[in-house]
Structures are given as C-alpha cells and as structure tokens.
C-alpha cells in the first residue's frame, strides 16, 4: 500500500481529487457528519478510510451510519443502507440535526457572499417571476442553520462569489433579521440555538475561512494558483492578507483509495 506521506505532485492528480481530499480533511475523527449527494460522499468515505475511522455519516433521506461497499449516487440510494445502524426517515435525521448532534456538514451552492450566505434557489430577479430557477434550498439552509460547522464545496467564478447573492437560501454569518431584512450577526437571530456556521469554503482554486467578524478570507491557495488569481475570480474585495500558503495536495494513498476503493466504477471520478 502506498504511504500517504508521499504527496502527489502537480499533474499527478485531478482538480476533483484535490477537492475530495481537502473536504475529507475537514472531518475530525468521531465527528457526526451530515453529507449530501456527490463530492461530500467521496469526502466522508475517504475521511473514514484515513484519519477519521470513528466518524459517523448521516444522510438526509434517513440512513444513519451506513457502511456502503458500493458508492451511493445520491442520499436516497439503497447503497447507503448497507450495514447501516438505522434506516429511518427525514424526521429522524432532521430531529438529530435540530437537537444539535451534527458536528460537520457538507453543502454546495451556486452563489456565495462575503458572509457565507449561499444561494441555491434562483439567480437574477426573484419577483414577480424568477429569472432562472435552480434546485431550491432542500435541506441546505436547515443544515447550515443547525450544524456546528459547515463546509461548502463550490466552483470558483466571479459571478458566483458576489457582494450580495440574489437570494439568501442558506444563512451565513450575517443574515437578514425579518421583517426589516437588516443584516445582523447570526448569533443575534439564533440566540440560544446558535451553534456555529460556515467554517470553510473549498473551491477549485483555494480554501477559504471566516474571520472574527464572519467575513470570508483566503486561507490556502491550491498548487498552481496565486492568491491574486483567486481574488480576480471574486466580485467582492477578497481578503488575501491571511493566506497561510498552498493547500496540501492529495496524498498518493488518498488518490489510490479514491480510485480503487471508493469510486472504482468512475461514478463521480470519471
């Protein structure tokens, strides 16, 4: 077996491999993880096979702590149920979420603002009729509301990293307080039910985190990119003063696990 200490060199891995490994590294051993369809599934499976064997995965459709031997293609997939502790339903898993049991969750989004507010509902005008509808929120806003930490996996584009997203589907660190809609710190709205919020955003160019004021900054830049290039792919004035260096590339063993154990069929990793 390849040792993970050996890091892959540029050209030896694909962008998706780096995204999956960077996401997996956000999981701590013993975490209760809420994961959605796609890359998050690769990330949690990779984390469990490497540094976080005690992590437990909950899927939105109702499966708890499955041990799939074939990669599920979505959260409703029967593959999630293989050797699961419980196959319940939405009420069970959302109750656990609201109860405060979820440590980390992986989410996606079409647009994000500097406070980590995310849009998955519609782009452009919302009323009187939406210009372009997306999937809608699903559980994204619920999970982002009530998990201790959330990690967003997104595509880095200027039109997606915006000063103000067109529709706040999922609440970040400064959120509208209704009925006025004034943006206030999340703690003010959630009160005693405040548990945390977005802790990282991982894109194809870098890893972002949030400062004491809930504002996004670039933490590490992926090999092959400069912080300035990342900044150019944001519509807002991105803080690049705190960049720690390059994102750790995938280990050779992590790549081997991704292609031979986790997704040998090439469902997500073509």
């Amino acid at each position: 077996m390849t040792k993970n200490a050996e890091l892959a060199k540029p050209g030896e891995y694909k962008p998706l491999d780096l995204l999956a490994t960077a996401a997996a590294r956000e999981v701590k051993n013993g975490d209760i993880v809420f994961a959605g369809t796609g890359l998050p599934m690769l990330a949690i499976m990779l984390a469990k096979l490497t540094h976080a064997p005690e992590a437990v995965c909950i899927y939105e459709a109702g499966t708890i702590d499955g041990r799939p031997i074939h990669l599920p293609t979505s959260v409703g997939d029967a593959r999630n149920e293989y050797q699961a502790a419980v196959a319940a339903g939405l009420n069970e898993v959302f109750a656990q979420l609201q109860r405060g049991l979820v440590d980390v969750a992986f989410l996606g989004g079409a647009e994000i603002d500097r406070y980590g507010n995310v849009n998955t509902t519609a782009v452009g005008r919302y009323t009187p009729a939406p210009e372009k509808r997306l999937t809608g929120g699903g559980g994204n806003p619920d999970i982002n509301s009530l998990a201790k930490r959330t990690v967003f996996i997104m595509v880095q584009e200027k039109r997606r990293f915006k000063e103000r997203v067109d529709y706040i589907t999922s609440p970040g660190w400064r959120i509208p307080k209704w009925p006025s809609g004034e943006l206030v710190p999340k703690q003010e709205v959630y009160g005693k039910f405040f548990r945390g919020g977005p802790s990282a955003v991982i894109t194809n160019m870098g890893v972002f985190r949030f400062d004491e004021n809930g504002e996004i900054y670039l933490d590490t830049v992926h090999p092959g990119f400069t912080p300035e290039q990342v900044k150019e792919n944001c519509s807002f004035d991105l803080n690049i003063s705190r960049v720690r260096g390059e994102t750790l590339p995938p280990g050779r063993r992590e790549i081997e696990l991704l292609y031979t154990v986790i997704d040998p069929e090439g469902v997500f990793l073509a």
Partner: protein
Amino acid sequence: MAKPEKVTLQEAIRLIPDGSTITFGGFTIWRRPMAAVYEMVRQGKQDLHLVEVNGGTHTEVLIGAGCVKIWESCWVGHELYGKLGACLDRFARSGKVIVEDYSHVHMLYRMLAGSMGLPYLPTYASLGTDILNPEYDNLGRFGLRNGSHPKIPKKKYEIVRDIFSGNELIHVPAVNPDWCIVLAQMVGEEGTVRVKGQKYSDVEAIRASEKVIVIAEQIVPEEYLRRDPDLNLVPPYLVDYLVELPWAGHPTGCQGMYEVDGQFIKNFYEKSKTQEMFDSWAQEWIFGVGDHYGYLEKIGVRQLEDLRANQVLGYSTRMRRGSR
C-alpha cells in the same frame, strides 16, 4: 375496519379531481409512483396544487405536461442525472406555475403537523433566510392567502417568540393534502403497508392526507406482514385505494426491487429543457405507449433485468453506473 378498495391504476387516477392538492411518497428520484404520474398526464389533469416535502423527476413530468398550477416545496431536480428542474424553471418564469419556496425541514414539519392533527409546528431551521422574506410570499402576492382556498394557509409562516426562552422561532402551517400517492414494495391483501429501506417522509405524507392511493409492487398475504408488525408502515384503514403494479416506480429506484434508471432520467432531463422537446418525449413515453405495460415493453426486458436489484444487496450490481 375500513379496508382499501382494490382498483386499477386508471380507476384510481380518475378519482382525483382537477385542482386537487396532492403529495407523493418517496424522496427525489427514489420510490416515486411514476406510473400514477404518467396516468395523470394521460388523463389530462389540470390545476393541480402539489405540496411536496421534496420534488423530483415525477414533479418535472407533471409540470412539463401542464398539469400543475401551484408547487409548494423546497427542491426539485434529478440528483446526479439532471442538475435542476428545467420544466419548473420554464413554467415559473412564464408565471404558469406559482412556486412557494420553503426549506426541507419546513416542508417536513408542515406535513408532520398535518399528520398529527396540529395547526402548525415550531422550528429554528432556516431563520435568517430569504425563505422568510415577506416580499417573497408568492401565494400571498397572487392574492391566494385570503382564506377562500381551503388548502392554502392564510400565512406562509409566522415568526414568533418562544414563550419559554424568548428566542425567535418559526411556526410553519400544517398541510393536509387532498390526495397522497405512495409506492410501496409490499402491501397485504387487507392493506397493511410495508416499505423496505429508508422511510423518507412517507408516513407523514400518508397520515396528513385526506385520501391515500397506494401502488404496490406486489400484494402479499396479509398474514405474512402481520408476522412482523414492527416492520410495517401503516395499517389498512389509512389506505383508501390499492393498485397492484410491478415496476411502477421506473425510472426512479425502489429499494430491494430495482435501481434508478439513470440514463433514462438523464435523457428526460435533456428533453425537458424546451417545451417542444418535452412534448415529443411525452408523446413517445407517456401517450404513445398507451399504458404502463406498453411503457415497460418499450423499455425492454434487457434494461429491466439490468435494473433489477440483487436480492441480497437490495440494488443492482449488473448496471454500468460510471465511466469505468
């Protein structure tokens, strides 16, 4: 004890009046009663009001065919096989379908409240989002919250103070759909329903609804299901009509029976991007095949056998899923 009436699919769907409020069992592209959805399209249902915990391929078929007037839910798409609901996008933009956006927890709790006979349920989920933006209350904007529509609550939600903690809290209104259509792997001759695998939000949808149609992949001796009552979902008196129909969920997946037909859904998603392409798809796969068995014959034995679940694992191991 009332028992469900055994009817054909056509008879069951004929009972649903235009303008009904409808919900479905299943989850996104899993265990959706697709045969019933196709039959609704064949019978030309109009002005349906869908209230769904989440949507999926079935939602898109109904919207594309022009059957839907209002859609209240939180998500529509085809998971890996189609990134969004192209029909909903088109119909919402043109104003033909009114969309009310909630979160997943909101929709679940609306159904749960309905299933418990309560007027509403509280939650903290999705505070501080545009879901609660007063200007984005679409049914309100269209004047439909005036109390004259029995299935439309007077308010989308209410932000209240938790009387114990003083914290901000959302109340979401209960929903009691006129009809619920559920696909189950197994139903007893008297109507006890057993669902294998994840339960999604089926029990909430069934209990909340006024009338329930269950499509059974197979009807089995009632005595068999009553040997293990802990494995059953609902008793016979919660089911009004029972239809036995194999492969009734295709192209969605049915745990222990068959796999999601990803290529079929992918193709549908591509065709759903324009109305013209949708119409010819519907002609080919809904009207042209005549009925459910015509549909299955068109799909073909080879494809159905590839989709058939391994009886030990509960999913197909013969289907090619990825690039390798």
